[in-house]
């Protein structure tokens, strides 16, 4: 019985390895090796570390805020997903912070922004082109792109069996299949 289990596990491992190799190491299900394999792996690994770092930075900042406030053991990060708005509001009131700070921190997952940046973000923006808004305060320039307001066409590309949708403004040329493969490979 142990022998059959070993065989099954080895076959499963081999299948996973071959699947990974086909989609990452080799090009277009052929023996040609992807020249960007190492680069892609580095990007994936660094992206993973970056996301993990942001997650821990956010956890750390929210934990510190709670400790400085009421010392409660409630976890603010998980409260966002629970949808328990009462507890979140309690924390906001106790900390007496501007109401705009929390959503920005929650959306970006970064540590709280400096007061200067907060002031710059509060600057009223003017529309400079369709769907693009800009403003300036002191040395900061703020841009906001509202994708839904831009007249665009959605193009669907197939890269390595995955469908990738790209929204292109109507007055712009769509990218070629080769360009999309280079970006999303």
């Amino acid at each position, binding site marked *: 019985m142990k*022998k059959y289990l*070993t*065989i099954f596990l*080895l*076959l499963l*491992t*081999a*299948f996973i*390895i*071959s*699947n990974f*190799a*086909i989609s990452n190491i*080799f090009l277009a*299900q*052929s*023996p040609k090796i992807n020249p960007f394999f190492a680069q892609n792996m580095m990007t994936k690994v660094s992206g993973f570390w970056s996301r993990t770092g942001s997650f821990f930075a956010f956890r750390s900042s929210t934990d510190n805020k709670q400790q400085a406030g009421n010392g409660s053991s409630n976890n603010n990060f998980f409260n966002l997903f629970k949808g328990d708005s009462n507890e979140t509001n309690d924390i906001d009131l106790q900390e007496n912070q501007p109401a705009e700070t929390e959503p920005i921190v929650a959306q970006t997952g970064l540590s709280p922004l400096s007061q200067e940046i907060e002031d710059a973000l509060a600057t009223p923006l003017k529309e400079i082109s369709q769907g693009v808004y800009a403003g300036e305060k002191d040395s900061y320039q703020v841009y906001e792109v509202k994708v839904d307001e831009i007249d665009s066409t959605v193009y669907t590309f197939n890269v390595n069996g995955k469908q990738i949708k790209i929204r292109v403004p109507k007055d712009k040329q769509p990218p070629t299949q080769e360009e999309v493969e280079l970006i999303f490979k």
Partner: protein
Amino acid sequence: MYIGPFYFDTKELFLIIAALLLGVAWALGWPLWWFDKRALLTLVVLMLITKGLLPSIHNEAFFILALVTIFLSLYLPVFQVVLFYFVSFLMFRLLKVI
């Protein structure tokens, strides 16, 4: 059974007959449901070579590997199946399963 200086056991003979049949089917254009004849022939040749190179391999594990590989050829591209076969065979050998 000896053919010249080479010894063939029953399973090897059946594998050779299967390879010959596939070759004939491919040459004469006989239909073979679902399976790609060229892919099957490639796999059978690879199996004959690996089995020929390592005559002491354990037949049961090799039989399971061959069955799974042939079955996967129904769904996966040939190169992935060949890769799967070689990776499995290498791991079987390293862990002394065959």
